[in-house]
């Protein structure tokens, strides 16, 4: 059994709290809604947004630091080294696996892999999600020129050495040793 005060108290509380709630919902009914209409207008994306990666291929030295840092091994990269220059074979990032943790970005010694602001990963086929981050395959034009220059330089040096050696035939050893640079 409920007492009379409780009985009418229940009635009063139900009606008054209902009205209290209706005031709040009514207030928001009259206000302008907050969402943006997505495809037409878009929210600004912050600078640090962790979207699809982009690679500054010119800077990359194929050191595999990002691939090693990845917890799920979704980065695959391969390049052939020609002296200082790289001939790119592959640099793929499998977005079926990638969990956008940004752990690949921090260890990069050249600061060349970044996460961009692109986020739409819509494809008709899963295999298309294996993104190729390379902007060019093989060697870049600059690298080719540099390589050619280096080769010419080397050839010239070799030729000079050869002539020097020919000149100083009796001398046994060529003293100059070719030095190796690590700059990429």
């Amino acid at each position, binding site marked *: 059994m409920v007492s009379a005060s409780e009985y009418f108290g*229940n*009635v009063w509380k139900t*009606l008054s709290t209902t009205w209290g709630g*209706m005031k709040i919902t*009514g207030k*928001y*009914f009259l206000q302008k809604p907050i*969402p943006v209409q997505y495809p037409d207008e878009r929210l600004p994306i912050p600078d640090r947004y962790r979207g699809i990666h982009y690679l500054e291929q010119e800077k990359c030295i194929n050191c595999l630091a990002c691939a090693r840092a990845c917890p799920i091994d979704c980065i695959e990269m391969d390049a052939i080294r020609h002296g200082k220059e790289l001939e790119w074979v592959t640099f793929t990032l499998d977005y079926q696996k990638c969990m956008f943790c940004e752990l690949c970005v921090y260890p990069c010694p050249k600061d060349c892999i970044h996460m961009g602001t692109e986020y739409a990963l819509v494809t008709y086929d899963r295999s298309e999600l294996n993104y190729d981050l390379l902007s060019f395959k093989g060697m870049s034009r600059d690298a080719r020129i540099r390589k050619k220059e280096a080769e010419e330089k080397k050839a010239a040096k070799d030729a000079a050495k050869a002539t020097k050696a020919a000149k100083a035939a009796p001398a046994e050893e060529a003293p100059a040793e070719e030095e190796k640079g690590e700059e990429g």
Partner: protein
Amino acid sequence: MSFLALVQDTITKDNVMGTPHDGGNFVTELLAKIRPEWLPEWMFILTAVGIAVGFIVAMVSVIAMWSVWMERKVSGHIQCRYGPMYAGGWHGWAQTLADGVKLLLKEDMIPKGADRALFWLAPAIVLAGIFGALAAMPLSYDWYFARMDLGVFTILALGSTTTIGVVMAGWASNSKWSLYGAMREAAQVVAYEIPLGVSLLCPLMTLGTFSLLDASREQATLFGWDCGMGWAVFTNPFNMAAFVIFWIAALAETKRAPFDLPEAESELVAGFLTEYSGIRWSFFFMEEYAAMFLMSVVGAVFFFGGFETPLTALMRAADLEGGVLYNLVCFGTLVLKAFAGVFLMMWLRWTLPRVRIDQVMTMGYKYLTPLALLCVLLTAVWEYVRYLVVG
């Protein structure tokens, strides 16, 4: 008597259908003017019935479509979002239309193990009940399908037949969740028929009529002054309390939140609708929104003056009564009042949490029914005193 003779009899008899100043409803009246000489009587009657039925079907569809869109917009704006925005261009007005087409084209699925006949019959019964009830709704003083002296009883009786359809749907679905929904619906409707009817007795006593047309006409005068504001809630303070009770009971009758226990998404998946899809599912929704509209109409007619506003009174004073414009204004007034009620239902739905089944029963039997009876008693006293004072 043959069936056609019965129909003819029903349409032409004054005490059932006719008004004091004409011999039938406005469809027959209209048709009689353009009826060719050669058209036999039975064909004429069938045409009239067909047009009336078509009109009601169209009305239900339009009400449901508009209400669904309205519900989505109202809920959206209450929740700080937009709701549909694209279909049709302007604020997604054609969204329901597009959804309707989609539902029509969907595969008609009947689950394995379901009672096919009942599963098929349930939406039909649900819709038939609400069509019947809507036929008793007058559109204006001169436009109505049937002049019923017991109109409010017709609406309540036919409106609650939808329960049978819902229980049938729950049982036929062969799903445990559906069965729960159906049982809840049965229990809930039985509990709330009583306060619904009893609370309606208060304005019925005040107005002294069961007919929707007469009830509206009664509310034109406030203290003998034809100002269109003599609404039942103004002439008798207990009618306001009765309206609150009526409204809560109406929410429960139409399965609206906070009494949407038969559906109860978070508890029963979708209640009796769990196994329904496509056009059958949409029939249940049409019923729900038509029932909301109908309950709002009953509330508007018996508590809030029906067709009466100062505007109608003004038009009467300008001697426009009976004209097309006057009827249009009456119709518009009622529809606006009804949709105000529908909006109130939506506002409540998007504010309140759902009640539990035992609380539904408690509220129905222990709170609403006694309070409704109390209202009836106090209204009776008030009316008697008024009779003694005013005469």
